[in-house]
């Protein structure tokens, strides 16, 4: 009896910061957005980012929102002015309702210290990327 190959990756999508980007916001603002039209499948989502903060002990908080649902977050701090640090998220959604999905990565600096967080992607200094796989399993 023939068995049929079960596809696991249906499609992929990718977004990244390509120009120097900063925030002084104390509340979440969009950093990266990505729209993908899917079947009734889960998404595997990989977030990777690093930035520098102008304030010693300032920190960054980031959150991942999938079709309006706050799904996961990460945070990191810079021990000294201008020092960098890094955060990442690996996330799998439950099967989604088929249709257009809006995936947002938001960020802000910590309210207690403030400062300005900056991502400088040129010449391999730091980065923010959002990689999405629609999968069937």
């Amino acid at each position, binding site marked *: 009896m023939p068995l049929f190959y079960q596809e696991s990756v249906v499609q992929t999508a990718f977004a990244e910061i390509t120009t120097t980007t900063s925030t002084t916001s104390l509340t979440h603002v969009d950093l990266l957005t990505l729209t993908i039209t899917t079947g009734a499948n889960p998404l595997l989502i990989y977030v990777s980012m690093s930035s520098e903060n102008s304030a010693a002990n300032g920190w960054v908080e980031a959150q991942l929102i999938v079709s309006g649902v706050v799904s996961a977050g990460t945070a990191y701090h810079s021990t000294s002015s201008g020092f960098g640090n890094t955060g990442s998220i690996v996330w799998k959604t439950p099967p989604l309702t088929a249709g257009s999905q809006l995936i947002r990565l938001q960020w802000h600096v910590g309210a207690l210290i403030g400062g300005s967080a900056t991502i400088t992607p040129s010449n391999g200094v730091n980065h923010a*990327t959002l990689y999405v796989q629609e999968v069937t399993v």
Partner: protein
Amino acid sequence: MPLAGSRDAATPQVRNSAFVEQISDITTTSTTFVDLGNVSITMVTAGAPCVCFFSCSASNATMNNVITSFRLMVDGVAARGTKFTYNTTGGGTTLTYRTGTLAAGSHIFKIQWSVAAGTGRIRALTQIDEGANLLVEEIDR
């Protein structure tokens, strides 16, 4: 109807993948980027994008509060980088990156690193919580 094991050509697939990990303890005092040990992959691709996943945990043998930087090189060109600040107890970082469509042929993916001061170390052999690895997947699109 497709036969067992056949694939829909329109469906994106992982065509090829390669993985490498640092296999020995290494250090650097370089303040400019140098190759990170053996973390380098040469992959012959069919002309498609590649997704790169890098993760690393390191420490500084001599100083606290030191920036260490890493960057992904694709065919000799800096793609994206990441950095973190750590001390003698260590820290970690990741980098996920998707290239544009690469020409069919041989491509080199490597990681380079540098420290702002002190002696950066990755004790991949003697410390289970330190290491560096790179996964590259060639995907249809």
